[in-house]
């Protein structure tokens, strides 16, 4: 069938030298690729067609064509390998997609919107799977917020993140003390990760009755407080070692009173590690961008800030990016 078509095409071209036939030869090679016909098979078809058309082909010509066939064999093998790899890659890609969907379901969290805080959150993965994590807890009286960053990115980071989520889920519901939560998490992480792996995490909870924000940090990128009255930003100073490096760690806990309009701004180093070309952005720039959108709701703010940094990096995120803003409404 294929041979017949090829033979007719070749015959037509040799007789007419019509360029249309060359175009059809091109189409033929494309179709052959789709049908996974290898280069050496094409040469074989050519030899067969030629011998059919010219049974009296000179001996040297016939031999040289077989010679050509031999030289094409490696290309044929390479083509087969390429085919196998392509299939394998497709399989892997769908597996990662399934895993990424699973992760989204696992790490899904509901942003509390019925309390004294206006909350906005955005988290975008640099690759298919996210090594950043954030979570909210809402027990009417308190609003808890966790933000974490696993070293590295991609699948290993994502797997590690799931462990944090499970560990947090096993803690009793009335456990809201940030320093205790970090201490317990550190124990889990230290036992379960390979040396060299670690997680940074900030945990805070806001008491809706006395408006105190209590927090502890396990080596997490320092966030910012915004004071509405003075329209100023202040770095959140909180000391503490990252999770997973030392066995028994006690974390310090701090408290801050939030006035109406005050904000807590939390992020991961995907934000501070943004680069413009070869230059890193400065923290003041983050503050400037937030200031620009300060009149918006918390969710609109985080969306706009993300869009700004996305543009800055030509839409090519180098690291997972997470930004959370909490603002006291009343």
């Amino acid at each position: 069938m294929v041979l017949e078509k090829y033979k007719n095409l070749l015959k037509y071209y040799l007789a007419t030298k019509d360029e249309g036939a060359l175009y059809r030869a091109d189409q033929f090679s494309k179709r052959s690729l789709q049908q996974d016909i290898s280069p050496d098979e094409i040469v074989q078809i050519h030899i067969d067609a030629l011998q059919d058309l010219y049974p009296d082909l000179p001996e040297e010509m016939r031999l040289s064509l077989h010679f050509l066939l031999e030289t094409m064999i490696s290309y044929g093998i390479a083509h087969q390998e390429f085919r196998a790899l392509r299939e394998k890659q497709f399989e892997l890609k769908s597996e990662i997609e399934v895993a990424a969907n699973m992760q989204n379901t696992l790490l899904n969290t509901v942003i509390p919107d019925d309390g004294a805080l206006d909350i906005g959150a955005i988290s975008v993965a640099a690759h298919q799977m996210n090594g950043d994590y954030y979570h909210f807890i809402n027990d009417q009286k308190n609003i808890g917020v966790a933000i974490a960053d696993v070293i590295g990115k991609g699948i290993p980071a994502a797997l590690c993140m799931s462990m944090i989520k499970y560990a947090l889920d096993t803690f009793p519901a009335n456990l809201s003390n940030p320093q205790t939560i970090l201490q317990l998490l550190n124990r889990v992480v230290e036992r379960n990760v390979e040396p060299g792996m670690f997680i940074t995490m900030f945990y805070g909870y806001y008491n809706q009755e006395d408006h105190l924000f209590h927090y502890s940090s396990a080596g997490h990128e320092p966030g910012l407080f915004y004071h509405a009255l003075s329209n100023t930003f202040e770095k959140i100073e909180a000391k503490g070692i990252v999770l997973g490096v030392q066995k028994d760690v006690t974390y310090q806990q701090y408290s801050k009173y939030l006035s109406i309009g005050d904000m807590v701004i939390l992020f991961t180093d995907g934000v501070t590690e943004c680069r413009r070309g070869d230059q890193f952005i400065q923290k003041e720039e983050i503050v400037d961008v937030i200031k620009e959108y300060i009149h918006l709701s918390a969710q609109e703010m985080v969306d706009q800030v993300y869009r700004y940094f996305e543009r800055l990096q030509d839409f090519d995120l180098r690291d997972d990016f997470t930004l959370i803003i909490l603002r006291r409404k009343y």
Partner: protein
Amino acid sequence: MNLSIDVSRTDDIHYVKLSGEIDVYTAPKLKETILPLTEEEGVSVRVDLEKINYMDSTGLGVFISGLKSAKEHQSELILMNLHERVYRLFDITGLKEVFKIENTVRGGN
């Protein structure tokens, strides 16, 4: 950007001079160099970071592995001449409390 690693030894001290960037691409090479050095009991591994102008958290991961290995094998790991930007990482993450860090260098990006 690349990372070049130069290792020399005087008695029980290994000097590891680094230059370039430590990131997700160069970290494996660094790990392969440093870990075996820390596995010899009683030695001191001194890593000079004066010519490191950029390091990300994967670099921290390598040094944490090195530190854990040194503890396990009774050797020591010392980091020297850190640029402010690199030192900041050890500061934020609380890791400056567990590492032996000698001399930080002002400036650099």
